C-alpha cells in the first residue's frame, strides 16, 4: 500500500476508533450517573420519611411534656431547661430541612452532566460519520481539507452544546441562600 493510501485509511481508522471507544465509555458514565441520581432520589425519600416520622414523634412527646409542665410553677428551673431543649430541637429541625434540600441541587447538576454526555456522544457519532467520508486513497491536501472541515464542525457542535447547558447551580455548600426583596 502506498503512503497516501495508508494515511487516508489510518485517519479513518483513528476517527472511527475515537468515536467508538469514546461513545462506549461515555455510555458507561451516563449509566453510572443515572444510577447515582436514582439512588440519591431514593435516599432523600427515605431520609425525608424518617425525618417526618421523628418530627411527629418528638412533637407528640412535646405535647405530653406540655401537659406535665402545666403542673409546674412558672419559675421552675425544669421549665426553663425544657424551653431551651425545645429551642434546640427547633434549630436542629431547621438545619435538617435545609440539608434535605441537597437532592434538588445535586439532581440538577447530575441531569446537566448526563445531557452533556449525551451531547458528547452525538458529537462523537458525527465524527465517525464524517470520518467515513474521508477518501482512503485521497491526496494529502484533500485529506487535510476534510480534516479541517471536521474540526470546524466539531467546534460548532461543541459550542452549541455549551450554549444548551447553561449552569444554574453554583452553590458550593449547603448553607441557606440569600434573600432579596425587590
Amino acid at each position, binding site marked *: 500500500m502506498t503512503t497516501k493510501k495508508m494515511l487516508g485509511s489510518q485517519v479513518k481508522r483513528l476517527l472511527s476508533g475515537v468515536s467508538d471507544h469514546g461513545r462506549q465509555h461515555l455510555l458507561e458514565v451516563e449509566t453510572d450517573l443515572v444510577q447515582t441520581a436514582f439512588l440519591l432520589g431514593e435516599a*432523600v425519600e427515605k431520609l425525608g420519611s424518617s425525618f417526618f416520622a421523628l418530627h411527629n414523634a418528638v412533637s407528640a412527646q412535646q405535647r405530653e411534656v406540655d401537659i406535665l409542665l402545666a403542673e409546674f410553677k412558672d419559675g421552675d428551673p425544669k421549665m426553663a431547661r425544657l424551653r431551651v431543649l425545645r429551642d434546640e430541637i427547633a434549630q436542629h429541625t431547621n438545619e435538617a430541612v435545609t440539608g434535605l*434540600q441537597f437532592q434538588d441541587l445535586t439532581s440538577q447538576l447530575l441531569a446537566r452532566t448526563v445531557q452533556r454526555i449525551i451531547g458528547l456522544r452525538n458529537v462523537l457519532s458525527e465524527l465517525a460519520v464524517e470520518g467515513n467520508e474521508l477518501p482512503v486513497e485521497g491526496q494529502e491536501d484533500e485529506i487535510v481539507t476534510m480534516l479541517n472541515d471536521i474540526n470546524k464542525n466539531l467546534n460548532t457542535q461543541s459550542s452549541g452544546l455549551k450554549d444548551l447547558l447553561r449552569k*444554574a447551580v453554583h452553590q458550593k455548600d*449547603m448553607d441557606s*441562600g*440569600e*434573600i432579596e426583596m*425587590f
Partner: protein
Amino acid sequence: MEKTILAVDDSGSLRQMLSFSLKAAGYQVIEAVDGQDGLDKARAQVVDLVLTDQNMPRMDGLSLIKALRAMPSYQKVPILMLTTESGDEMKSRGRAAGANGWLVKPFDPQKLTEVVKKVIG
C-alpha cells in the same frame, strides 16, 4: 383565616420541605409540579402568595410569573422566586417579569417564614 401559598417546584423533595415549613408556620399550602400545573392551580383558586422555582419543565418560573401578572386577580398577589439561580441578570429578569423577591436555595425554614410573614402576614 389561614393564608394560602402556592408552592411551585418540579422537585418532590423540595416541595415536601416547603410544605412542611410553611404548614408548621400556620399556612395552607397548594403544591404544583411545574409552571403549567402552577398556572392551572392558580386559576382554580386565587392564593395569597406564590413561591416558584425557575428551571422547570413545561413552563419555567419566569413564564409562570408573566402569565400570572397578566391575570387581573394576580396583579397584586406577591410572587417570590425560590431558585438555585443567584446571578444579577436572572434577578433583573425576575423583577421585570413581576417577582417581588428572590430567594436562593437552599432555604432556611425560619428565614423563609419570616419573609412570608412580612409579605402576607
